[in-house]
C-alpha cells in the first residue's frame, strides 16, 4: 500500500502541526500493509529530524510554492490513500486525487475558508480526521460536511519528559527562588489574543505574593502584556522568557507548579500533555480543545476562561497539590494508542483496505 502525505510542515518544521505530522507519518509507515509513505512538505524551517523507514521525503518541494505544486504533480496518482494535511492545501491535493483524506487541527477549520475552491473541494473528501471533537463539530457546523470522520488526538512520548527537580539555572535566571510558579507556553502574538495570558495576568493580583507567572514564548504582544503587568501592579511577579531553545522545554515545564492556559483558540492543546508528562497539574479551558486534552477534567481542572473567579480558585486548588505526579490516564494519549488509531484509520479509508 502506498500513502501520499501532502502537508504544510513535518520533518524540519517547528511547532504543533509539524510535530503532529511527524508522529502521523511515522505511525502511517509502521502499518504492516504500508509499503511507502511519500511526504511532500510545503515548508522546512530547521534541521530535519531522522526520517522513519519506508518514508520518502520530497524535501525539494519546500523550496517555494511552484516547487511544491510541481512536486505534487510529479508524484503521480498511484496511491491508495492521499492525506491532505491542511485545509488550505486542498487545491494542491486535487492535482493528485478528487478524494483525499483531510486532516483538521484547529482554528483553520473553525470557519468558512477564504478560498471558495477549497470550500467546494472539501465536499469531495474521502473522510475527515480531526485532532479534536470541538474542531470536528465546528467544521461540520459551517461546512455541512456529512461524510465519515474520525478523531486522532495528539500523542505524547512520556519518556521524553518525566518529573524532574526545578532546574537551578532557570530558577536563578528568572528570579524564581522561593516562588510558586504558574506557567503558560505559547506564541505571544497580537493577532492571537485568545491564549489566556491576559486572563491569568488579571487574577495574579488576587493570588498570594509568592506566586509568579512565567509566560514562555516570544511575539509582538509581549510589550502590551508587560505594560498590563505594570498596570496591574504585578510586573515583578511576571517573567517573559521570550523564545526559548527546544531543549529547555522540559525544564521549563518542570519550573512550574501549575500549568494554566484559559484559552479560547486551541484545537487540542498539546502543551497540556507535555505539562502532565512532567507531573505538573494543569488548568485548561472549557471553551476550546483544551478540555479534550485533559479528558473533560479527568487529567486536569477545567475553567471557563471568561470567569476570573473560577480561574483564580482553580489556581489556588492546584497550588495546594504538594506532590507532582503523572496521571495514569495520560496513557490514553500514548504513542502506542496514537499508532493504533492511525492504523485503524488506514484500514477504514485506504482504497484497497
Amino acid at each position: 500500500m502506498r500513502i501520499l502525505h501532502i502537508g504544510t510542515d513535518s520533518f524540519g518544521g517547528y511547532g504543533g502541526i509539524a510535530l503532529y505530522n511527524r508522529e502521523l507519518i511515522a505511525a502511517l509507515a509502521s502499518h504492516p500493509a504500508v509499503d511507502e509513505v511519500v511526504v511532500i512538505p510545503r515548508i522546512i524551517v530547521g534541521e530535519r529530524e531522522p526520517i522513519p523507514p519506508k518514508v520518502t521525503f520530497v524535501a525539494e518541494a519546500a523550496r517555494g510554492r511552484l516547487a511544491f505544486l510541481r512536486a505534487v504533480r510529479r508524484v503521480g496518482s498511484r496511491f491508495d490513500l492521499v492525506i491532505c494535511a491542511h485545509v488550505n492545501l486542498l487545491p494542491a491535493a486535487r492535482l493528485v486525487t478528487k478524494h483525499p483524506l483531510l486532516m483538521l487541527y484547529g482554528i483553520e477549520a473553525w470557519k468558512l475558508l477564504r478560498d471558495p475552491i477549497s470550500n467546494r473541494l472539501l465536499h469531495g473528501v474521502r473522510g475527515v480526521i480531526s485532532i479534536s471533537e470541538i474542531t470536528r463539530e465546528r467544521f461540520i457546523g459551517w461546512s455541512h460536511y456529512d461524510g465519515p470522520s474520525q478523531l486522532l488526538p495528539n500523542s505524547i512520548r512520556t519518556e521524553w519528559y518525566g518529573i524532574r527537580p526545578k532546574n537551578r539555572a532557570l530558577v536563578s535566571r528568572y528570579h524564581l527562588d522561593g516562588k510558586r510558579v504558574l506557567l503558560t507556553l505559547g506564541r505571544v502574538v497580537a493577532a492571537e489574543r485568545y491564549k489566556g495570558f491576559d486572563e491569568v495576568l488579571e487574577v495574579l493580583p488576587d493570588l498570594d505574593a509568592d506566586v509568579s507567572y512565567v509566560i514562555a514564548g516570544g511575539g509582538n504582544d509581549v510589550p502590551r502584556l508587560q505594560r498590563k503587568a505594570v498596570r496591574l501592579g504585578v510586573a515583578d511577579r511576571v517573567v517573559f522568557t521570550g523564545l526559548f531553545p527546544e531543549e529547555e522545554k522540559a525544564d521549563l515545564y518542570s519550573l512550574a507548579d501549575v500549568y494554566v492556559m484559559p484559552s479560547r483558540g486551541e484545537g487540542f492543546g498539546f502543551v497540556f500533555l507535555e505539562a502532565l508528562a512532567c507531573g505538573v497539574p494543569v488548568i485548561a479551558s472549557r471553551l476550546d480543545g483544551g478540555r479534550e486534552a485533559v479528558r473533560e477534567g479527568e487529567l486536569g481542572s477545567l475553567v471557563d476562561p471568561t470567569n476570573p473567579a473560577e480561574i483564580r480558585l482553580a489556581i489556588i486548588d492546584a497550588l495546594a497539590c504538594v506532590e507532582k505526579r503523572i496521571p495514569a490516564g495520560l496513557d490514553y494519549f500514548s504513542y502506542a494508542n496514537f499508532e493504533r488509531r492511525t492504523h485503524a484509520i488506514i484500514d477504514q479509508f485506504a482504497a484497497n483496505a
Partner: protein
Amino acid sequence: MFAYGSAAPPVDANEIDAITERMRPRGPDAGGTWISPDSRVALGSRRLAIIDLTDEGTQPMTDVDGELRIVFNGEIYNYRELRVRLQRLGARFHSMTDTEVLLQLYRHDGAAMVELLRGMFSFVIWDPRERRMFVARDPYGIKPLYIADDGQTFRTASTVKALLAGGRISREHDLAGMAGFWLMGSVPEPHTIYQSIRAVEAGTSFFVSERGIENARRYYSIASTFRRGVQDEAAARLVQPNVLLRELVTDSLCNHLVADVPVGAFLSSGIDSSALVALATEAAGEPPRTVTLRFEEFAGAPLDEAPLAERFARRIGSDHVTRLVTRDEFLADMPKLFDAMDQPTIDGTNTWFVSKAAAERGLKVAISGLGGDELFGSYPSFAALPRIVRAARLPFAASVAGRMGRSPKAKAAARFGGTWEGAYLLKRGLFLPDDLPSLMGADAAREGLERLSMLEHIAGAIEPDPGTAFGRVAALEASLYMRNQLLRDTDWASMAHSLEVRTPLVDATLLRQIAPLLMVEKSRCKQHFAKSPRNPLPEWLSGRQKTGFSVPLAEWAQLPADGTSTRMRSWARRVMEQWA
C-alpha cells in the same frame, strides 16, 4: 429573619409561619421552618421539588455537620461539577441536591462562591460560628429577593407580599417606587411599592451580622461584561457565528435542562423559542412538550402565534398543545392574578396563562425564550436609541423641537434625547415625568421623582460604559426592562401555578461567553441564531415580522383609549387601583 440588634425582640414563630404560608403556591411539595435555640434567627421555606425529589431536599437544610443552614430559591445548574470539585477537596454530602452544594461551597470559598454559580438563585445561609447571615441574588435578578431592615431585625423573602404577610412591616407606600411604576410600567429596583421593603440588587451579595448589613458587594455587572466583550473580539472571530451560537446556547440549554422532572417549553412563532426548542431537541434527542396560547381576538392577525407554532411543532415532532384563552377565563382569573401579582406591573398576564397551560399539562419546569431580544438586539430600541441620541445632539435639534412646539413628544425629545438614559426613558416610558402630577398628585409626584432620580438610575445600567451603541442598549434593556418587568413578572405569574420557568438566554455565563460575538455581529446575531440548529429554522419562521407576546387586554378589560395602541396606560391605572 435575623434579630441582630440588641434591642430587637426575639423572632416570632407565628410571623415566620405566616410568611412561609403565603409562599405555599410557589412551593406546594414541602415546607419547613427552623428557629435558632436563642430565638435570634428564623428560616422558613416552601419547596417545589425539581432536583432530588426525596425528603433530603427539604429546607431549611443543614450541612453534613449540622452547622450551616440554608434557605434557597432557584436552581444551580452546574451543581454537579461543583460537587465533584468539592468532593475532591474533601467535602461530604448527605443529599444529591444543589442546595447542599451551596452550603459546602460557602464553607470552602466564602463570599466568592457566588461567582462560581451558574443558575438563578436567591439564598440565605446562616453561619452560627461567625453569627452572621450570607445573602446573595443571581447576576441577572431572575429570582427575586426582598429585604426589610429596621435597624434591629433583618427580614428577607422571595416576595414583597410574603414579607407583608408576617404582619410586622409598614404598608406605607414608597413614592419613588410609585413614580417609577408610572414612568416605566413596573417598579424599578431597588425600590418597591412600600417604603420599608427594598429589593436586593441583582448580582450582589452581603452579610448581616450583629452590626447589621455589611460587606455588600456587586459581583456581576452586565455593562462590564459587554465592555469586556469589546476587548475579547478576537476570540469571537475564530468561529462561524451560527456555530459558536449553537455551541454556547446548547451548553446553556443543557444546563437548564438539568432536572429530575420533565422539562417542557413555551413555544411562540418567534425565532428565540423556536430555536431553543430545536436545539433542546438536538441536545436531548427528543423534543420537549410544547405549549402555545391562542386568543380568538387575534385570529387571522399577525399577533396570532398559534398557526406557525403548530406548524413548527409538527416539523420537530413535539407533543404540542395550543391553549385557547377567552375573555371569560381572564375575568374569572383576574382576582387570583392580582393576588399573585407581587408588585404593580402592566405585564405578566401572558405568562400567567401560558404557565397555567403548562401546569395543566403536568409540567413543573418550562423553558422560555425570554431574553433573546435583549441578547440579540431585536427590539426596535436597538435602532431607535442611537438615532434619538444622534438627532438630539445635532446643533439645530433644539430649534427644530422648538418649532414643533406643542407636541409633548417633541418637547420631551429635546429635553431627554441627548443622553442614552434620556433616550431610553423616552423610548420605554409609559408616562413622562410631566404626566405624574395628574396621576399621583403634585407633591407626591415631585417627591417621588426626586427620590427616584430616574435618569441617574437608568444611567447606572451603563456604568461602566459598555463601549458600543449595541452594548449600551443591550445593557439598558437587560438591566431595566427585562429585570424589572419581564423576569419579575415571569417569576410571580409562573410560580403562582407551581411552574418553574427557566431562561437559557438569560444566563450570566452565556453572556460572558457570547459578549465578544455580540460586539462583532450585533443585531445580525438573531439571524445567526435562527441558523444555529443543525436543521436551521425555516424561512417562513425566521423571516416572519417580529411581534410581541401579547394578550388582548384592551378588549378583555375593555380599556378606554389612552393615546397608545395597546392601551397600557389605562391598564396601568387599573392595576394601580389594586394598591390603592
